[in-house]
């Protein structure tokens, strides 16, 4: 959330190497980020494979990244307002995937369901999953974080870790501890259309079609509405916001609700996109999404989305060209590189804590 930003610190005396660092942090990182796709594009062209293979990977990377972006928004919203890394957020997302899958059965959604029934049913699933995740997030905030508002920072942090495990165990109780396949209701890997030979699958369209409007609405909500302004004010200075008559606790609860709603939307998209669920998917997705939020600049909505998309693309390229076993190393190497030259993230600004 941009509201977490504060005025830049007064300029300090320039040191040798500062100019180089500034150049690297602006242009160098851009070059580094595009290096992998450009490198493999050149290799493909040299081998006469054309641009389609790398474009295929980027399309899948964007759609995968859209899911990470939706989850990352929850991390960044909460961090922006109370500077807490809500480790339970990913597991809340996992609960959302289970809610969505349960609703398939309740609503009778199967592979045989007609298009209209499917769209209507999935819309219900989307709304219910969002409400479920939003409510769970608010409940966690009320029960576990609010009583620790004035406690040392480690206390809510470890409480968040604790809640993460509680939710994982709820998941195990609900659907067991193994991965399980769910019906591929949208024929996720069916090629919907091709553009110059680049394949766009049903799941790619779904992920982007859900993410773009939600991010747009969330941005509007935060920038234009009264409660959104209250969230930004609280993020800047909770004490000053309180003195100005803002109900800080309610505002924080609302922030958790927003984050939960995004996670709920991501959970349905994930269930339809991946078609395999398990209790640990939240931890894994949470880790990636948190990395995305940090990479983009934690506390910044645009940063979370950008970070999600970058990680999605990096994962696809690395899986396909370097080897799946190296993908986490590649993603985190990029994170380290960005942190070294831009500790505030790609589009982040200095936060209360950092600044």
């Amino acid at each position, binding site marked *: 959330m941009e509201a977490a930003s504060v005025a830049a610190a007064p300029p300090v005396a320039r040191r040798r190497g500062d100019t180089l660092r500034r150049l690297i942090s602006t242009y160098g990182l851009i070059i580094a980020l595009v290096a992998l796709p450009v490198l493999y594009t050149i290799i493909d062209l040299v081998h006469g494979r054309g641009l389609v*293979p790398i474009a*295929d*990977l980027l399309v*899948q*990377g964007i759609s*995968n990244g859209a899911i990470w972006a939706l989850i990352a928004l929850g991390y960044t919203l909460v961090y922006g307002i109370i500077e807490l890394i809500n480790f339970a957020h990913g597991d809340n997302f996992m609960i959302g995937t289970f809610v969505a899958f349960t609703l398939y059965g309740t609503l009778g959604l199967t592979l045989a369901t007609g298009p209209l029934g499917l769209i209507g049913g999935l819309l219900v699933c989307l709304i219910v999953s969002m409400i479920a995740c939003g409510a769970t997030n608010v409940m966690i905030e009320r029960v576990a974080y609010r009583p620790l508002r004035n406690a040392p920072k480690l206390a809510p942090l470890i409480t968040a870790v604790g809640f993460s495990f509680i939710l994982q*165990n709820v998941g*195990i109780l609900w659907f*067991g*501890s*193994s*991965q*399980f*396949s*769910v019906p*591929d209701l949208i024929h996720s*890997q069916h090629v919907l259309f091709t553009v110059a030979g680049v394949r766009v699958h049903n799941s790619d369209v779904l992920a982007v079609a859900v993410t773009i409007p939600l991010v747009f609405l969330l941005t509007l909500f935060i920038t234009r509405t009264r409660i959104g302004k209250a969230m930004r004010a609280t993020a800047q200075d909770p004490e000053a916001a309180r003195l100005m008559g803002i109900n800080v606790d309610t505002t924080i609860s609302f922030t958790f609700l927003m984050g939960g709603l995004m996670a709920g939307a991501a959970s349905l998209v*994930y269930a339809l*996109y*991946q*078609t*395999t669920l398990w209790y*640990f*998917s939240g931890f*894994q*997705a949470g880790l990636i999404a948190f990395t995305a939020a940090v990479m983009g600049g934690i506390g910044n909505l645009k940063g979370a989305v950008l970070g999600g998309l970058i990680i999605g693309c990096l*994962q*696809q*390229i*690395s*899986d*396909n060209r370097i*080897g*799946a*076993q190296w*993908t986490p190393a590649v993603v985190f190497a990029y994170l380290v590189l960005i942190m070294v030259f831009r500790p505030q993230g790609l589009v982040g600004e200095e936060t209360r804590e950092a600044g």
Partner: protein
Amino acid sequence: MRLRSAAATGSCCALVVGLAACGGGGGGGATGGKVAAKSLTIYSSLPFQGTSRGQSTAVLNGEKLALAKFAPGGKLGQFTIKLQSLDDSTAQNPGTADEGQTRQNARQAAGDKTTIFYLGEFNSGGSKVSIPILNKGGIPQISPANTYVGLTTNDPGSEPGEPQKYYPSGKRTYARVVPRDTIQGAALVSVMKSDGCKSVTLWNDGTTYGAGLARNVELSAKPGGIAVQDKQRTDKTAPNYRALAAGIKSDCFLWSGVTGENGVQVFKDAAAACPNCKLYGPDGVSEEAFTNPAKGGIPANVGARTKTTVATLGLKDLPKAAPVIAAYKKKYGAAPDPYGIYGYETMALALDALKRAGAQANDRSAVIGQLFQTKNRNSILGTYSIDKNGDTTLTDYGLYAVKNGKPTYQRKVVADKKLIPSGSSS
């Protein structure tokens, strides 16, 4: 001076404690020798959580059935036999043997003075952990399902130091009733060859079993005239394998792994990326948790393209198993998973070794001796012996296709001997 002597005394104490701790790895049980009591315990350690639950339950049911047949009322000669079932998986690590839990199970058995046999593990990775502990304790062990080469031999596919590192006592205590992966690898290649595969994309799940079998398949593929095009290790926690699958350029695909390592997603993504590929899997995925969409398995259209190999033959090629299958159906209300037959034979072999030991059935060393002297045993799996490494001399594999969500026996696969990588087998 006083300080120096105190330090020396302290160092000696630390050394003694350290040595004692090192020696206690076996759980403090008797190292070989006799069990004082007339009541003997057979431990069975299998993964009951996650996707392996069905197979493990079948193995345990088979073991119970054999115990009831060969030691009615739990009596074998002058001894009473008790079966103690343990779970080597955990909720956090389901579908396979959890290293910590397996260690705990092996230590429990090693620490129990009445232990006479340990039947397990189901997963080769688990046996890597339990064999050394039980070996130190001199406890005979039989696995109903392990196929990893390095547990018993240094054949191709094993890692440096194997298998000696699993036997700290220097004596062999472990045997298995399923053929090792040098044979399964050759069987899979034989099947692919007969199906007309020219090239294969070979992925594995990174486990001891999966990676080892993949090495064996690769070694067999070369003489079999099948090109291995893309070797990859899949990560269980990856949300999908679409980008990886986009690299499939072969006409056949083989994943060497177990269902619990996200096998269903692997096959879904590989099948979608390569719509004309023939799909193959080993015994690790030949179970309903993998083949049945209603149980979270692969969709029917992917199942229709999938074949698996299991060291169990169907009834038509395993006539001696018919009465056991009938008894199983009668007692448990359903036909056994193929591993149920192996569970039965594992217990039957253990009881046979005890029976042959006679009055010395409470002497672990004597029982181990009898186990390794198993020659031309007329069993429900066919006639086999246990060789000096603890391997069965059986070599037949069964080919299974997916029908109505179940692995269904197609035919016997006799691996072409030219495809079996040669090794020193020590």
